């Protein structure tokens, strides 16, 4: 009935064309604003006080250990302001600075706790709120948080180059071999690439979900990973169709192999960004032993990413400069990620970045899938399936060498 009335009323309005269209679009917003203002002015008539004690939720976003000092950055995840009244470390009250005022919803505060901590030992910090609730935070292994000077960022850059740039560049050296293999082999290599990427996407999603569980839930928690994935998938789809459109304008017909390679490189680059964040954060927290084993593991793991970039270029003749650019697109984000992870780690941000990487890879897989097609037009023919599974197996087994 009402919907009917609306259409009847709208028709003459359009004909008379008195209020401009934008005004009609704004009217509901204005009404909502007016209603909310009235509701607030009347102090929420009929609702009364909320029942029950205050809901207090604090998430520890960052832990920094300095000599004799433990710094926790906490964010209020709950609906009510939270006041940190006292702090205990390993069941003893301690002196601390910061967070004198109540922490408002979604606001953050840093609590600096005086504690003569001992390297290698475990600590449980409990923040006692004004209602007597406790927020416990575990420091599994106490190690000095590295100071962020030039040499530290240099080290992070070196780490990024080791685990990102060099392995990808080495992997791209498969290009001459890829050029000479017969078409059936090339299809299998594309299948292998898709398998590699599928594993990376899965890995990034799971790692993102794990990080999202640790971070502040007020920003969406696991939803951040899925949102990140959707954003990058759509962004890359848009960029891909834009690049494809330009290429097609230039060259009437032709496989967008160059575009594919760029998109694969971007997808892998976004994945390596997330990986770099995880490595930088783990190193900062002392949870990562920097050793030859880690670097070797990552080299093996990420070298296959280089193969994925060059596989679409089997029938192209790209310049060395172009190849170098592709390698940097895929590998260099690991350096950037390591810096972000070491300097400004936030579990929520890292979770979003992992989701972002996973979405990019999913988009690349969709683009690459047609290149597995055999002469009969089948995509998932037995050879392709074996290759995809093989790719996943390679990533699984080399992934066992590294765990961050």
């Amino acid at each position, binding site marked *: 009935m009402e919907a009917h009335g609306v259409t009847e009323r709208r028709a003459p309005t359009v004909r008379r064309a008195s209020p401009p269209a934008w005004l009609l679009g704004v009217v509901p917003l204005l009404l909502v604003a007016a209603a909310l203002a009235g509701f607030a002015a009347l102090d929420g008539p009929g609702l009364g006080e909320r029942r029950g004690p205050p809901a207090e939720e604090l998430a520890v976003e960052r832990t920094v250990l300095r000599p004799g000092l433990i710094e926790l950055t906490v964010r209020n995840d709950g609906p009510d302001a939270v*006041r940190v*009244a*006292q*702090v*205990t470390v390993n*069941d*003893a*009250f*301690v*002196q*601390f600075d910061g967070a004198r005022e109540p922490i408002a919803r979604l606001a953050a505060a840093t609590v600096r706790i005086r504690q003569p901590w001992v390297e290698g030992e475990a600590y449980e910090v409990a923040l*006692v*709120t*004004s*209602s*007597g*609730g*406790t927020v416990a935070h575990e420091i599994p292994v106490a190690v000095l948080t590295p100071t962020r000077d030039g040499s530290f960022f240099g080290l992070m850059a070196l780490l990024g180059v080791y685990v990102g740039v060099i392995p990808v560049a080495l992997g791209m050296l498969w290009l001459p071999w890829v050029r000479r293999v017969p078409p059936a082999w090339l299809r299998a290599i594309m299948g292998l690439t898709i398998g590699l990427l599928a594993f990376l996407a899965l890995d990034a999603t799971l790692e993102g979900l794990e990080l999202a569980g640790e971070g502040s839930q007020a920003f969406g928690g696991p939803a951040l990973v899925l949102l990140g994935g959707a954003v990058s998938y759509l962004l890359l789809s848009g960029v891909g169709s834009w690049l494809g459109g330009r290429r097609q304008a230039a060259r009437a017909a032709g496989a967008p192999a160059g575009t594919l390679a760029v998109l694969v490189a971007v997808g892998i680059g976004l994945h390596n960004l997330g990986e770099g964040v995880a490595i930088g954060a783990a190193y900062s927290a002392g949870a990562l032993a920097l050793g030859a084993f880690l670097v070797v593991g990552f080299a093996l793991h990420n070298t296959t990413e280089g193969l994925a970039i060059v596989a679409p270029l089997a029938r192209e003749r790209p310049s060395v400069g172009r190849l170098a650019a592709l390698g940097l697109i895929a590998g260099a984000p690991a350096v950037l990620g390591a810096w972000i992870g070491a300097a400004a780690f936030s579990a929520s941000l890292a979770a979003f970045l992992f989701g972002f990487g996973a979405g990019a890879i999913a988009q690349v897989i969709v683009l690459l899938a047609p290149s597995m097609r055999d002469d009969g037009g089948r995509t998932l023919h037995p050879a392709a399936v074996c290759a995809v599974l093989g790719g996943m197996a390679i990533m699984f087994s080399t992934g066992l060498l590294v765990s961050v």
Partner: protein
Amino acid sequence: MVGAGAAALHARVPHTHPWEDAATAHTAHTGPAADRGHAAFRAGGAVDHRANGFDPHEVLRDFDWGTTRRLPSGRVVREWELEAVDREIEVMPGVRFAAWTYNGRIPGPTLRCREGELLRVTFANGSTHSHTMHFHGIHPAEMDGVPGVGAGHIRPGARTVYEFEADPAGLHLYHCHVRPLAEHIAKGLYGAFIVDPADGRPEADEVVMVLNGFDTNFDRANEVYAANTVGFTYMDRPVVAQRDALVRVYLVNVLEYDLVNSFHLHGNLFDYFPTGTSPRPSELTDTVMLCQGQRGILEWRFPTPGRFMFHAHQSEFTELGWQGFFEVS
């Protein structure tokens, strides 16, 4: 009647409500404990004893002798009125706890009498939950203050009279005995009960310490420990003692959730009289261990002036509030 009693108590105790004046409740009372290397509450905050309605430093030497009258037979009848009151207590600076109390304080009043007197304790329940008063000592079964015997549960708004003889001489306690027992005790319904021997005890500087703790997050483990409710309070302001004078501590452990508690004195040893029932000490020591409900009398003289710590000899309890100083001059 009961409501009027609560209002009267409320009016009698000088106090301010923390929500009226949150800023002044946290003015800089930086206690000495904060900057001398001991565990302590955050510097710059202190429990507002006025708002709580009781001060642990007053609780130390506050002995409630009740009121007395003589029966025609010449026997002394000693009477008290106690009321259960729900009350929010600041148990550590800035942390409020919805407590259940006798007469608005934790521990409840230290009831003191002489051996052989007839005791009449009128108990009014001004709380929103059923409670009782269960005394330790010798008394008839129907005066035991447990559900199902005698008056049993005292419902909100109801009252009863517990009547029995002061027997035997010693240090005892009373507490609520309604289930869930742990909760009714942990929320604050307990106090010391002292029966002096007919011929009294030697003159001494006497203090009461009821060892307790508070489970503020309801995980059946205490967040804070203390003697007389407020942790570190005798660190920030030591218990004053005189050199060479006899000190007598009436020590009662009511701590819930932990299996044992203890008392340790620095730089001195004390005579220990378990339950205070014998005139002869059981040992000369500096550390005693007590389970819940266990109590004893400690006596010693400080031969030298200075500050002497006393605390639980469970380091965890010590650093979670249960420590203090004697200041000997």
